[in-house]
């Protein structure tokens, strides 16, 4: 190649690249300026409006109707357990144990709406918890009176590049009248946020979890391997998050990081309330002066003559409560919601938000051979930089999340893992995000684009369908 040719080709290169770069610049500018409209494809318009959550009464919160008479007999005691407000000092095998660090003082304070067992209520309950009994906590900046209940995780241990990933509880027992002499400080959430080290997660509802936990692994895998052409065209892959313990598929938590209702209940007792139990027997913070009880704080109760269901610890009773909650009941269908369901399928939502699984035969008959309409494949998917929270959990990467089950979202107030929006249309649009140098594009991009390309009526019907669940 001689000099002239080289210059010519350079010219050609400039000629062809300049307009493209200009176009890209304009597009990027437009994206920044009109985030929603540009995100889902330039031509489409999002006209759908979120009708908002369906009003009370709750469409959820009852026990499975087919539980046996003996099981029904213990429903009151497991409900009491789920509602129990824990103070610090243990005075009987079923109370106390709060802290030294905690996010709240009872299961039901966060799992509350639209009924006990659910998720965040409209008024944030933490404001009546954080300074209870004289506690001197300040409210973290990310908790607002009408916002979702959120817990914080740090990506790295503060000030280091050592991976952390753990929950850092919002509050401590310092100042409480039942925690004299304890001196620890709340985590530096502001510093963590400044250092881009703060991850927030909201409360998932528990309805139907006893059915989700028994779905066969092989059914999840078979569903993953179905409709491969459609999925490929949409850019959808997804994979299970497997347990390192028995190799089965985990299903609970925003990244499908927990296997069962028992492990979930036990983990939450320690992580959210600081109540050590027989599965997680060690205090998360053992600062001398802040440990007020022998560990574990809830244990098998050996009192003679005790009721059978009071024999195991609180974690097991909490497990039964979660396990026996029936799924939410959808609202009545209408021509709009029926068409919305069709559009939900047509746009491709259903390729991740799998309509249903059937539970296998179970040893507890109330849970077996039931078709559960959860709208989730129970897999984790890349959701792009827009949702990525930087935290890997098990086989779920830092930008991967479990397909959130949609049953019950008709009465849900906050959406996405960090509760970033209460608008279900925004939640749909937030599934779209383009890849960057760190994370690939969201697997939902084409589906959200398809949604945006729907007619105004079809868009609205789809949203109405979601609000009917």
């Amino acid at each position, binding site marked *: 190649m001689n000099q002239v040719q080289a210059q010519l080709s350079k010219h050609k290169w400039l000629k062809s690249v300049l307009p493209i770069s200009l176009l890209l610049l304009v597009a990027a500018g437009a994206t920044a300026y009109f985030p929603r409209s540009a995100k889902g494809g330039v031509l489409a318009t999002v006209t759908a409006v979120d009708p908002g959550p369906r009003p009370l009464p709750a469409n959820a919160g009852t026990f499975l109707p087919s539980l046996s008479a003996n099981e029904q007999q213990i429903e009151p005691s497991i409900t009491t357990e789920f509602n129990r407000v824990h103070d610090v000092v243990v005075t009987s095998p079923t109370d106390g144990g709060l802290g030294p660090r905690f996010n709240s003082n009872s299961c039901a304070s966060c799992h509350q709406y639209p009924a006990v067992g659910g998720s965040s209520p409209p008024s944030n309950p933490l404001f009546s918890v954080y300074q209870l009994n004289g506690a001197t906590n300040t409210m973290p900046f990310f908790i607002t009176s009408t916002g979702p209940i959120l817990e914080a995780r740090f990506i790295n241990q503060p000030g280091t590049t050592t991976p952390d990933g753990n929950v850092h509880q919002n509050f401590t027992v310092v100042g409480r009248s039942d925690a004299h002499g304890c001196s620890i400080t709340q985590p530096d959430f502001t510093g963590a946020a400044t250092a881009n080290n703060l991850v927030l997660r909201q409360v998932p509802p528990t309805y139907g979890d006893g059915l989700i936990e028994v779905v066969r692994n092989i059914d999840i895998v078979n569903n993953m391997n179905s409709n491969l052409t459609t999925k490929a065209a949409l850019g959808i892959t997804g994979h299970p998050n497997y347990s390192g313990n028995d190799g089965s598929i985990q299903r609970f938590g925003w990244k499908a990081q927990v296997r069962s209702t028992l492990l979930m209940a036990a983990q939450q007792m320690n992580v959210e309330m600081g109540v050590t139990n027989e599965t997680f027997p060690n205090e998360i913070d*053992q600062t001398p002066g802040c440990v007020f009880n022998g560990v574990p704080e809830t244990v098998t109760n050996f009192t003679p003559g005790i009721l059978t269901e009071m024999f195991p610890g609180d974690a097991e009773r909490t497990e039964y409560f979660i396990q026996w909650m029936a799924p939410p009941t959808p609202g009545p269908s209408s021509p709009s919601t029926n068409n919305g369901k069709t559009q939900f399928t047509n746009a491709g939502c259903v390729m991740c938000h799998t309509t249903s699984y059937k539970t296998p035969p179970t040893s507890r008959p109330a849970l077996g051979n039931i078709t559960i309409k959860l709208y989730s494949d129970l897999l984790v998917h890349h959701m792009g930089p827009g949702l990525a929270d930087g935290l890997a959990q098990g086989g779920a990467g830092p930008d991967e999340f479990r397909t959130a089950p949609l049953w019950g979202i008709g009465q849900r107030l906050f959406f996405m893992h960090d509760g970033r929006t209460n608008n279900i249309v925004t939640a749909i649009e937030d599934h779209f995000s383009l890849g960057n140098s760190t994370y690939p594009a969201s697997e939902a991009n084409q589906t959200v684009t398809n949604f945006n390309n729907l007619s105004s009526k079809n868009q609205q019907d789809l949203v109405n369908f979601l609000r009917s669940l």
Partner: protein
Amino acid sequence: MRIDDSPIQAHAGSKSRRHLPLYLATAALLAVSLAALMSRPPVVVHGTLTATDPGPRPLPAAAGSFYSALTPNQSSITTRLTQIFTEVNFVAGGPLVKTVGLGPRFNSNSCSSCHGYPSVGGSSPPNNPLFGIYQLQGATNTMPYFITSTGPVIVARFPYKSDGVTPDGGVHQMFTISNRTDAPGCTTMVQPDFTTAQSNNDIIFRQTTPTYGTGLMELIQESDIIANMNSNLSLKASLGITGHANYSDDDGTITRFGWKAQNKSLLYFAGEAYTVEEGVSDEAFPSENDESIPSCLPPFPVPAGTNKTKGVPDDRNDTGEAPKAPVNFPGDLERFSLFMRFLAPPTPVAPTPSTSNGFVQFQNVGCNMCHNVSFTTPASSIAALSHVTATLYSDLLVHDMGPGLADNVKQGNATGDQFRTAPLWGIGQRYFFLHDGRTTNIVTAIEDHRSFANGVYPNSEANTVINNFDALSPTNQQDLVNFLRSL
């Protein structure tokens, strides 16, 4: 006895010198690869190894009793707990007793078959119990090549999936319920191909760990484990010892059970083992361990009036049945965990001048920098476990153990060559040593702690300590070994 090919005798370098220079390079290469294969590279001789293993102390068992400090209410259920730990699980059928749910894949059919020696709750007995189990009820299993009648009970894990790249790490159960008379209809589930896995160098083994004293280990405070990790740092540095904790992804606390300290608690461990080892799905891990063949899954078509599991989980609490005694309410996994929690640590024999000197040497050479003598438990809601000094000889940390012990399986943050410091209490009556039960000789077990870095894994953190041991006088070496056999 493996002691005959200990590194002191096997000096591969001397042979190559006799070859022509032309072949020197080849010979050296061979020697290196041979050494690598044997995990016994030629080493600088620090001393002569003369100690011999007196062998396991004979029965009666120095372990297996419950804490004498249990409350009367706790003591009153120990008989029932022992029954549950020793119950034999069938697939289905038989009398209406609650012992069904085995398989479809399993390693054994009861906890105590493997946790059997020197008493219920322990580890591998001298005669392998699997020979009495694998073809029970007409099962058509063949015995895997790695199980021998006088060898340890071991389970197989495949480090990688069949592509040889993707990590697996899971247990692949030895046996299936195919053709068992209590599994009517299940005939086609085949055992894993262990021989091919072996030829692909993709199989590793783990033996049974004893459960005595685990109730204390479970409660030891994180802050004490970390404080011990951060003590004696200059001595540890001079020995090449570091180590770190393995943490739970669930609550961020230190995990401490299993060969890589991968398990958090006795309840968690019981839940895992029930479904992994016996195929009895439970409330912690509710899936059957192979769902691929419908006729091998419950409910099995057994006659009315006989026992069967109706489905998953095979075992659960008894909420659905008629009211029972409280101890019969929770699932087996809760009762297994109570059984283990209530088992006292093994009782060492009374010290002799030899064992007393052995304990001094144990500390002098640096064994105790990992095999930390004791921790004291914090206040516990279970009085018998409260403020107890647990003389377990472990720091509950994981350490790099070099290519010689590495098994290429990563669990939590324990990497392919890292293992938990195995607690030494009770090894006086132990038959098989190290994670894969590779030796019955405690002197070989000591020597096997030494191995040198290769391209994949760093040096074993124990290398200097083992050199120190080898450099001891014959009396001191033997006293140290006698001390270990007194535990």
